[in-house]
């Protein structure tokens, strides 16, 4: 069971994640060639890059309007990408050498960061329930995806501290991580790629066509 989840299933998850995203991009570009000529007509690389830049970094009016949420969501995204990549480096090492176990590494910082991440996700969930303008557009899927994102951190934290059932936690940890990877191409999480496309478009649309910024 454990071997299967760590071996073939991990590969499946990675392949679905990568191939899924490539497929989604190819399908979208293909459709755009047929139905979005206007985008190509007014595309501007410099406006596109500036639009992405101002939103990848907190350099826009919206961030200033919602400072608390912005800090939270930036921390959320940085940890989301940072913590697994950081840990993955160890797991890859482990995988290649078959000698060291990644979960036995002393990862004090990652441990605290996982806790911080859980707190951030809790904040995001509560915000959705409390803020009327977020609540009214929130769907069950929005909560579920936040839970899916939280699970690898929660189970990883529990496994690290050997709470509840260690082996079960490790298995759940890997399963939930794999689930998240598989879901990315097919849910709103695909925004990790499409963000760049939609920002490039709106940046050009407002910038190139009417000389107005979108940040």
């Amino acid at each position, binding site marked *: 069971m454990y071997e299967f989840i760590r071996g073939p299933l991990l590969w499946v998850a990675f392949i679905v994640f990568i191939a899924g995203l490539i497929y989604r991009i190819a399908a979208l570009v293909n459709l755009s060639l047929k139905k979005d000529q206007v985008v190509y007509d007014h595309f501007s690389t410099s406006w596109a890059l500036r639009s992405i830049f101002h939103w990848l970094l907190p350099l826009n009016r919206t961030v200033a309007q919602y400072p608390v949420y912005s800090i939270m969501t930036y921390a959320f995204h940085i940890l989301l990408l940072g913590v697994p990549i950081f840990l993955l480096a160890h797991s890859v090492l482990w995988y290649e050498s078959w000698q060291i176990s990644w979960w036995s590494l002393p990862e004090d910082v990652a441990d605290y960061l996982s806790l911080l991440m859980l707190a951030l996700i809790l904040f995001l969930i509560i915000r959705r329930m409390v803020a009327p*303008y977020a609540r009214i557009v929130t769907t069950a899927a929005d909560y579920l995806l936040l839970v899916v994102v939280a699970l690898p951190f929660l189970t990883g934290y529990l496994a690290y501290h050997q709470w509840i059932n260690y082996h079960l936690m490790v298995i759940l940890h890997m399963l939930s991580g794999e689930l998240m990877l598989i879901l990315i191409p097919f849910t709103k999480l695909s925004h990790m790629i499409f963000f760049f496309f939609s920002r490039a478009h709106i940046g050009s649309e407002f910038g190139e066509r009417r000389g107005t910024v979108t940040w």
Partner: protein
Amino acid sequence: MGEPVNTEVIKERLDAAKSARMKMWLELCAHCGLCAESCFFYLAHDKDPTYMPSYKVIKTLGEMYKKKGKVSREFLEETLDIAWGKCTVCRRCSQFCPFGIDMALMISTARGICNTQGVVPEGLQKAVANYWAEGNQMAMTKEDWLETCTWMESETGEEIAGLKIPMDKEGANIMYTVNAREPMYYPQDIGMAATIFHIAGEDWTMSSEGWDDTNLAMFAGDTKCMTHVVKQTYDAAIRLKAKNIAITE
């Protein structure tokens, strides 16, 4: 009321509007709510969340896609209420959305779909009929239009000697166009514009056709009529070999 809804036509329209952008936007919305503050409707209604941009899109176009066009007349009436009554399609929200989702375009698409079923605010329906009848939103006849211009020429000419309102002059630098409400209710506007052109020594003209630069058909979501309106103006400019088209403020 009570008339059947042609869901096939709606489905066709929805499919036609499903560009790569539309597909991406429908999927991408994080439901984060950050577009709320950007909309003056939301601010003017004490931050009532039903006025926030993404909610309005979800309730109208989003619902149409979800139901694959199978919507009722009541639904279309509600959409009219939102897409015209709670949004001006000003596009400000897309400047504030982290993903730059063009919600105004989506509301516009919803309006177009309502239009296929005759669900359009009355005033706009009237305007569209007027455009088809006389080429301008007030259904002003060509004689009335030319007469108004002549009248303004003589009235303004009394104050400024030598002032002319050149009609249908070929090869002018500027072909000036107006809002049809001006000749109808505020003809002095035309005299004022003529004064400016005259003092500036501009080589200008006005056309006897395609002179209304408003496009209420666009607000009605009527693609056929909105094309007709724009085309009239361009055709006039081409016919008169005008170098530029100027529109009233």
